[in-house]
């Protein structure tokens, strides 16, 4: 019986990218056993070049989430993600390119969560990213920079699924934010790391088209850029990741990499003026408050985030608890409301609950 190469392949590809590479001993040389490059401490980023793809690394993404509101105040969220997954640490033109592209898009409101997925081979122009002028695309989905502006300063963002689409304009308010140690983001005591920076402060205007009709929205968006060759350790089963826009302009990024012990919980505090500070592992406590059953899975969709060193106790609740991404790798991702010592909106992503 012929199997369909479908989600399982995509899943496995991504999983392959997410499993630690063989031959960690090569880490010191900056590449793994398959020849993929490994992130090194004290990175020096060069822009706009580094907004573009890094084919020598195994996995890379361009990740946008936006918390939006309709004129009448209804909560909306969108996600736009382009993944690059390399089968070999190089690029070649045409079908011979070992670069594979995946994309996920979603549109969420309290009573609906619409998801779409795209896949494409590199090398033929069906998908790709160029740094200058900035353009990231797969099929008809696109995140394009505006000519003249700072590379990621102004973006047009589009995606469409079956019977729905969105078309948004993003304008950055503040500077890029570098996570971890200047953009070198350690994921485990054993040294696994990635390059990770964000543009957390976009103002957004645009239009969502639901199967029932279109609506104008405004809000704020957050863009993550991350690439690596071995982001997770074998004993890490997944992550719970938050990007929060707090009232007053401060922002918070925290995540927990789940493992057999207490997990690994770094974060970044971003002040309204754009200055940021890393929050080291161990200062953040994450605690599930409420669970949602989706299929066979039980997902912690409400959380308490405590950062005693900053006097913060936040609680998050989902705009739509059923924001399940039934894509190649399935995960939960959706907008959340923030209450507690500060209030605001944000996005929660939870992987590894399969």
């Amino acid at each position: 019986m012929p199997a369909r190469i479908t989600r399982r392949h995509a899943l496995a590809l991504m999983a392959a990218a997410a499993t630690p590479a063989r031959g960690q001993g090569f880490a010191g040389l900056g590449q793994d056993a398959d020849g993929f490059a490994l992130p090194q401490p004290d990175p020096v980023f060069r822009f706009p070049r580094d907004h573009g793809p890094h084919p020598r690394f195994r996995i890379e993404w361009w990740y946008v989430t936006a918390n939006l509101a309709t004129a009448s105040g209804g909560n909306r969220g969108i996600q736009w993600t382009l993944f690059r997954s390399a089968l070999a640490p190089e690029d070649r033109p045409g079908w011979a390119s070992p670069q594979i592209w995946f994309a996920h898009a979603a549109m969420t409101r309290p009573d609906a969560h619409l998801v779409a997925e795209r896949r494409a081979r590199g090398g033929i122009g069906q998908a790709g990213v160029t740094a200058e002028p900035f353009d990231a695309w797969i099929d008809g989905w696109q995140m394009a920079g505006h000519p003249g502006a700072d590379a990621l300063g102004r973006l047009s963002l589009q995606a469409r699924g079956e019977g729905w689409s969105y078309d948004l304009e993003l304008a950055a308010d503040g500077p890029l934010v570098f996570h971890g140690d200047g953009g070198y983001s350690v994921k485990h005591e054993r040294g696994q790391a990635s390059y990770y920076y964000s543009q957390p402060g976009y103002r957004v205007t645009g239009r969502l088209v639901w199967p029932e009709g279109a609506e104008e929205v405004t809000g704020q968006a957050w863009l993550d850029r991350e690439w690596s060759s071995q982001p997770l350790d074998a004993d890490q089963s997944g992550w719970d990741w938050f990007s929060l826009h707090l009232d007053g302009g401060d922002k918070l990024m925290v995540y927990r990499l789940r493992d057999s012990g207490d997990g690994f919980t770094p974060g970044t505090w971003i002040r309204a003026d754009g200055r940021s500070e890393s929050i080291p592992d161990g200062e953040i406590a994450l605690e599930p408050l409420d669970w949602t059953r989706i299929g066979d899975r039980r997902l912690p969709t409400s959380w308490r985030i405590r950062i005693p060193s900053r006097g913060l106790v936040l609680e998050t609740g989902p705009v739509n608890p059923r924001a399940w991404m039934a894509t190649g790798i399935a995960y939960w991702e959706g907008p959340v409301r923030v209450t507690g010592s500060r209030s605001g909106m944000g996005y929660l992503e939870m992987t590894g609950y399969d």
Partner: protein
Amino acid sequence: MIGAAAAALLSHWRRHPGQLATLVAGLALATALWTGVQAINAEARASYDRAASALEQSDLPLLVPREGDSLPLSDYVALRRAGWKVAPVIEGRLRLKDGSARLVGLDPLTAPAVPGSGTGGDPGRALLDFISPPGEIRGHPDTLAGLPAAVEGRRVATEALSPGTLVADIGTAARLLGLEGRLTRLLILEDPAQDLPPLGEVAPDLREAPPQPENDIRGLTGSFHLNLTAFGMLSFAVGLFIAHGAVGLAFEQRRGTIRTLRALGTPLSAVAALLAAEALALALAAGALGVGLGYVLASLLLPDVAATLRGLYGAPVPGSVAVRAAWWAAGLGMALLGAALASAQSFWQLRRLSVLAAMQPRAWAMAQGRGQRLMALAGLAGLAAVPAILLWGQGLAAGFAALAGLLLGAAFLLPLSLSAGLRAAERAARSALGEWVWADARQQVPGLSLALMALLLALAANIGVSTMVASFRATFEGWLDRRLAAELYLSFDSPAQAAAVLPGIDASAVLPVTRTEADLGGAPGLVYAMADDPTYRRNWPLIEAGPQVWDRLAAGGGVLVNEQWAIRAGLSPGDTVQIDGAAREVLGVYADYGNPRGQAILGLEAFRALHPEIGETRFALRLSGDPAAEAARLVAEDGLRPDQVTDRAALKAESRAVFERTFAATDALNVLTLAVAGFAIFTSLLTLQSLRLPQVAPLWALGLTRRRLALLDLARAGLLAAGTALLALPVGLALAWLLLAVVNVAAFGWRLPMQIFPADWLRLGLAALVAALLAAALPALRLARVSPARLLRVFADAR
């Protein structure tokens, strides 16, 4: 007790090893022919399933280039970026060591399915292996074996693909086919949303095309397999006659033993159980033997059958047989059923067997004939059913039911007919000896009737099938001559290449051969364009034509339809048909033996007006010079590949080869059936001979030499065979008519004129005679050598 009873019953076989051999051989032969046919059918069916599932996307609508055979990769990317959900496909022929294979290149990230992808293992790794240079080439082991070593790619054997088809990553296929940067077609995975830019804006050089209807193979080939199955059933029936005779005789001869066992106190149920166990064991042994023989038979026949299915229907079938549980089980099941059928009568008698009943083998033999009248009545009923079935029945099933009625009816009538004939001869006999010979022959009919019926069936099938094949061959030859009237056939890569090469050819006529898939009155079929040319006016094989058919075809509007479509839809000139939704008048009907699908022909100008998007790349050329020289020149000077140029002789030879292969399997089965019938006669005579001593001994005592008696026996066997052959002739001709006028029409959609070939009958009659004489030779020889003492004992034993 049971052990002793078993030993006593089984000792019969030790004393009659020949009978045991007959029984086992009969069952094994019946099973073998049946299993062989089943194995072939199972192999073909599995292959169709693979073909159907391997490239599931074939039911998707397509985008194809308006001109030429390929489109630029950039069209695909442009469509994708415009939001169209399409998947790219590259397809071409890849040269094998012997012939070529179809290579299909797919992009695993967008294709709906990639054949041969396992469900286990690490799919990410599998994808990596599939697409990483030099890339995998997946195919049936047979096809991969033919791939030249120079073809770069990792061979991956998979049973998921039919022979003749290879699948690779689209990048690999592009490299192997020299189509870098090009694609053959796009599959439309989802209807484009309303608000997407239209095709004409994004890729104006492409057009939408209906799905490729290549998977109606199962329907088309169904008739062919039904044919084979019918043959298998016939052979099984013939084999059963043998087994039935052997079982009955063995039971009769053991009557004494059984009586003794019963008298000693063995319960009837125990005897019955022992006999049933024995029958079961024999059936299993013979069945296993038969299944093995069937496998050998299928292995021998399958290459021809596979070639037929490929040639006639384009259905991919491998040339080797895999052992499949399905036909193993079917074969053993048939052996058991056969044994049950063969021994049912004996068990029925056993139930009513008196403990005191004497052994009466001869009476048993005679009793076989007592039902003659009853059988003849059943036979008449069978024959009478034939016209009824034809009148009210429909399709292939009715055709085969009529065949069954005819054959069984004739077989059941045979004993009475032979007896009547012999009785008439007996009355006309002048000498006492003559009278005795006729009477004795008549007397033997009951004992031989099963074998003779088998012979009748085999002979009738032979005459019927060979008449059908020969009629078909004669018609086909004439049709080929007319259909392939042009001297040279060219196939260009693009209209541009055609335009560049054609003016340089010194041809008296250049006739485009253009066609397209079309909806013919609701069924998929082909529409051809036909230029107005004397070549066609003179030669085209019209079966029916309206007035001024050629002028009106050239003027446009009307169409010619092929016989298949005409018969299926009951069309004749003057009727109106729907082609792609447009109404057109039928101007004429033409013979078409290429394949069973519907077809129509439109005048060239009308076709061009209707399909301006189809570039003309194929042409038939009328030449006054030497076609072979012109073909060589085209390759040498104009740079055409040899496969782009075909001359008439080669095309005809290929068509003829396909035709001959089609019936190779039928011929082989025919010969085998005849051989089985011969064997049946042999075993029956052998059995009868040992029972006939009491009849022969008095004649010997009256002074006839043993040699004379043996010669008379031979003559009698020949006489019975000749009589049977004579009766088989009308049955065979009726069968041929049924095949040509009913079964062929239902199966293929063409009706063929029946021609008769008396020389063939004579040959077959002689073959039957020789078979019967050979079968009678050993028993006759035994009679010639029987010791006088044994003959004398007949009188001593007389009660």
